[in-house]
């Protein structure tokens, strides 16, 4: 049964290989690209059900025993992340049927998308720190090409910043792996957890923790390492921004959660207090940046930064409830953020621009779009009964229980500011009257056929349904998050699953 574990990696790989065979046929690429994501979704659901029933799944690739060979591990957090990645893949691949121009599809948009998904799922499922680096690189190389595909000036400039910062963080990550190997003599994460538990020199462990914090923090866009994100995320086509916004920074957050619950737990006094400070600053700087912007996708990009702070907050408080809050927040955030980008994309399709000054009157001309945006924006700001409310409520309750009052105040204030900047998009794009003499130098929006329009709207509607569904079904989702958090806070489960009963 544990061969199931390979599927979320193998399916995108197979899809990509088949897609490359049909390089010249756009129609086949589009059809197979979408079908591939559905197959992946089915595999992810099966995986989650299996892990929920049987506990942590482990696969030693090539039957090499655990600390020596390559290990794939799926605990609940990994499965949840893989499932979310597949749902976003389905949504974005359907959106891109009409949201991505044919020239980009012709240059391999769908194969690259699946390569990206393979990297993302690999990073979630690996149990070996060097393989984490390799999957990160697979994902990054795909994302580099997706970001610059099309070669517009803004895209290229954004890509230079994005590529540079990600290469630096990869170099730091690699150096950290080298030092970690020199200190412990192993790269298997479960084995590392055992060896670091009673490591003789606490200072070296802290230095390693900081190196990993810098490496993953840059990828997750935490304060003060986030500036590449707002510079690049609004430049590519919307479908690309949406999948980036939903998944890429979350891989960094996943890696942070993994190493700071499994490996670096000996000196939480130091590491997790630092994480808490970073979380607070990330929230504040992100939301202040968002308030200063005047373009839909730029506002949303800064919001990603701000919300990474909430996910870190749960990790930093480090109680079962707080970690459950983090997991819940990630579930909520990936769905809502991808959706907001998709909705922003529909607005851009309609007006040919995302600048708030040049658009308006959408409430009357597109009431459905307005409703979709309203629900997602309120969910992001944390208004009950939507998913964001429960995520924030859990985090804040946990922080209150842990008596971390400063972060509670910050989180609440940042929520208010989030609401403010969402209102800004709402009042400018939807509420105010459309500008009379629509600027003539802007590219005119193309009229869309009914079929194309419904393909753009369908993913957004499904994702809004999921957001509302998470709000209504908060109980079961919370149970799942708590179960994931308990697994994370009990590293022995992970170690036993990987190394067997004899060790640890």
């Amino acid at each position: 049964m544990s061969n199931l574990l390979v599927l979320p990696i193998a399916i995108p790989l197979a899809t990509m290989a088949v897609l490359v065979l049909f390089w010249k046929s756009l129609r086949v690429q589009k059809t197979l690209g979408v079908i591939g994501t559905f197959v992946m979704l089915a595999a992810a659901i099966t995986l989650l059900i299996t892990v929920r029933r049987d506990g942590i799944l482990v696969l030693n690739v090539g039957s090499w025993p655990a600390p020596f060979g390559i290990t794939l591990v799926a605990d609940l957090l990994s499965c949840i992340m893989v499932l979310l990645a597949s749902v976003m893949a389905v949504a974005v691949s359907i959106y891109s049927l009409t949201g991505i121009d044919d020239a980009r599809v012709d240059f391999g948009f769908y194969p690259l998308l699946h390569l990206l998904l393979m990297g993302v799922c690999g990073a979630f499922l690996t149990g070996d720190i060097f393989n984490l680096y390799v999957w990160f690189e697979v994902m990054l190389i795909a994302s580099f090409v997706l970001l610059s595909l099309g070669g517009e000036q803004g895209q290229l400039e954004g890509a230079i910043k994005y590529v540079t910062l990600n290469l630096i963080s990869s170099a730091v990550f690699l150096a950290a792996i080298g030092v970690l190997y020199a200190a412990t003599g192993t790269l298997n994460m479960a084995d590392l957890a055992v060896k670091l538990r009673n490591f003789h020199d606490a200072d070296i462990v802290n230095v390693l923790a900081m190196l990993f914090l810098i490496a993953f923090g840059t990828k997750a866009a935490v304060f003060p390492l986030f500036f590449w994100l707002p510079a690049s995320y609004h430049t590519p086509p919307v479908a690309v921004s949406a999948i980036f916004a939903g998944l890429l920074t979350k891989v960094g957050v996943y890696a942070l959660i993994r190493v700071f619950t499994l490996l670096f737990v000996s000196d939480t006094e130091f590491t997790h207090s630092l994480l808490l400070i970073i979380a607070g600053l990330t929230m504040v700087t992100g939301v202040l940046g968002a308030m200063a912007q005047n373009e839909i996708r730029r506002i949303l990009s800064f919001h990603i930064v701000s919300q990474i702070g909430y996910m870190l907050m749960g990790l930093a408080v480090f109680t079962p409830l707080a970690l459950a809050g983090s997991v819940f927040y990630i579930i909520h955030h990936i769905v809502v953020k991808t959706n907001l980008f998709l909705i922003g994309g529909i607005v851009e399709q309609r007006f040919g621009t995302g600048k708030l000054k040049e658009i308006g009157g959408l409430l009357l001309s597109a009431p459905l779009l307005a409703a979709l945006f309203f629900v997602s924006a309120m969910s992001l700001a944390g208004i009950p009964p939507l998913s964001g409310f429960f995520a924030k409520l859990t985090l804040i309750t946990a922080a209150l229980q842990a008596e971390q009052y400063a972060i509670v105040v910050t989180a609440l204030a940042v929520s208010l500011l989030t609401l403010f900047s969402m209102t800004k998009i709402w009042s400018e794009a939807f509420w105010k009257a459309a500008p009379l003499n629509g600027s003539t130098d802007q590219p005119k929006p193309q009229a869309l056929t009914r079929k194309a329009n419904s393909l753009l709207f369908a993913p957004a509607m499904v994702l809004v349904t999921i957001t509302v569904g998470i709000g209504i079904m908060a109980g079961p989702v919370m149970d799942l998050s708590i179960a994931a958090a308990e697994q994370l806070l009990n590293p022995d489960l992970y170690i036993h699953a990987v190394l067997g009963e004899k060790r640890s």
Partner: protein
Amino acid sequence: MDILLAITVGGLYATGIYMMLRRSVVKLLIGLGLLSHAANLLIFTAGGVVRGRPPVVPKGELHPLKIVADPLPQALILTAIVISFAVLAFALVLIYRTYQTVDTDDLHELKATDR
């Protein structure tokens, strides 16, 4: 030998970061290359330097007789070199394309995305 390698690693990091702080995109790329080499050499040094001892078990023995070089850091470096080679090749194409589009190699003029 370790000391010498450590100094080299430090020097590579310093040079790499210095190059990346220049305004030219080409120097940025050279800096990135140096940085990834520094990381590779760091792994090599951290893995322990052993002279002339291949990690091979002699015929008829169950384990190596003397201290041998650890092959794993070298495997890691090999993987990392391949990856950084690919990424640097991509970055080179990217900056060339940017140069064609923007007509400058000055990082301070790449501001279209910040406005």
